[in-house]
């Protein structure tokens, strides 16, 4: 059952990602991205990360993608034109991606024993567990990240403000 759901939503995620690249209209691409985000949420749920799954839906599929769609609607962006692609992408991009994928896959496969694995649906991280780790063991990184985000917001406001 768990494996079936994993395969279903993994395929949905990959299909959405492919569709995101292949679609020519920006709004279709944005909608495919929503599909990708939501199926990732289901995969998180399968691993027992219930809070993370719903946060993914609320923050990414909900708030951020609504803003994406909002901007596309506001600019009324048309269909993009097809190009043949750059030579650099063919020569360096595709081999580079393949090499990176091979390195990552082999690293994960060799380190699998020392990382320790989990079975799908075998454990549950409740919101309480998550916040205990986040606010006790990882308090400093958490606070530093929040300051970073605050700085980013201030930067966006400064950039967006009109000169008088």
């Amino acid at each position: 059952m768990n494996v079936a759901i994993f395969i279903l939503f993994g395929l949905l995620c990959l299909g959405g990602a492919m569709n995101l690249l292949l679609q020519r209209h920006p709004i279709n691409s944005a909608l495919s991205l929503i599909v990708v985000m939501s199926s990732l949420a289901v995969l998180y749920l399968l691993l027992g990360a219930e809070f993370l799954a719903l946060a993914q839906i609320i923050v990414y599929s909900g708030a951020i993608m609504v803003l994406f769609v909002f901007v596309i609607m506001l600019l009324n962006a048309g269909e993009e034109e097809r190009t043949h692609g750059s030579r650099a992408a063919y020569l360096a991009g595709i081999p580079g991606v393949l090499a990176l994928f091979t390195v990552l896959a082999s690293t994960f496969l060799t380190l699998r024993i020392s990382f320790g694995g989990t079975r799908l649906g075998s454990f549950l991280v409740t919101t309480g567990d998550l916040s205990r780790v986040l606010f006790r063991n990882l308090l400093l990184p958490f606070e530093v990240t929040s300051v970073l985000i605050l700085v980013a917001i201030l930067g966006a406001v400064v950039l967006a403000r009109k000169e008088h």
Partner: protein
Amino acid sequence: MNILIFVLLNLLKVAVVTVIFLMAVAYTVLLERKLVGRIQNRWGPSRVGPFGLLQPLADGLKLFLKEDLMPTAVFRPLFILAPIIALSCALISIGVIPFGENIRWHGVDMFQIADLNIGLLVILGVTSIGVYGIALSGWSSNNKYSLLGSLRSSAQMVSYELALGLSVVGIVLRTGSLRLRDIVNLQNTHGILSWNVFGGFQFVAFFIYLCAAFAETNRTPFDLPEAESELTAGYHTEYSSMKFAMFFMAEYANMITVGCVATVLFLGGWSSPFGNLFPAFGGPLVQALLPVFWFVLKVFSFLFLYVWVRGTLPRFRYDQLMGFGWKYLLPIAIVNVMATSLVLAFHG
């Protein structure tokens, strides 16, 4: 055999809840027309059936038999998808709401479809997805009024969702759980005195929730997405027949869901306002159904408030709406969260 009974009972439960919910949606429309009629000193629908009680049936039949127009310049896939997203998101949320005590029959919880650890977050998540129904309908219609309506609506919903989310944080802090049953059980002890809105000192949060909920459901005084005097009908201008009916049903279903959530979070859910003041009476059946009665009564009074506000308040201007959400509601909500956590840290 046991598995079979379990599955059948669950299916039956889902079917019954869905049918009751859809009937409630239909009769909320009638309630609104009747009450607004009385507020404006006229009768409202009174011709179909006794007191106009069969009016929803006639309305539904009319919408079902209308021609389904498909304008030529629309973006067809999204034009069809948008009302489906709107209605399904409006109908899903009812699945996590508890409307009675945890009474099990053959291992099936009779008064809640799904009891989730993160029920509250599921409701927020479904609401945030529901924005797409309105956003896409306006864009795919290829009509300037629709587009303006949906732009307003998505901006409004995203802005007020922050205040909505922050207003319920106080409740979660008090309960220490995102499970809706836990939230109700905490308010279950001393009747009205232990409800979050009174005993929990969350009346500020309740006010913020009310405002944000009115904005989230696009109701007066925040119904700018369909302001008829400037936008014809807003995002559903180009829709007809059942597609229009789906938007219409989604709006009223959202009203009911928001009422259910307000009841569960702030008004003690299914618990009686008298607590244990009166001795238990009647058989087990009465004792099982009495909480459902209290729940329905609370949701009904919330819907009554919705209609009352629509009959009394004029519409906000767009900049007033945004200013109110960002400059007043959001800071007040943050202060409320801080105050609640300080009190809980020193006394909790």
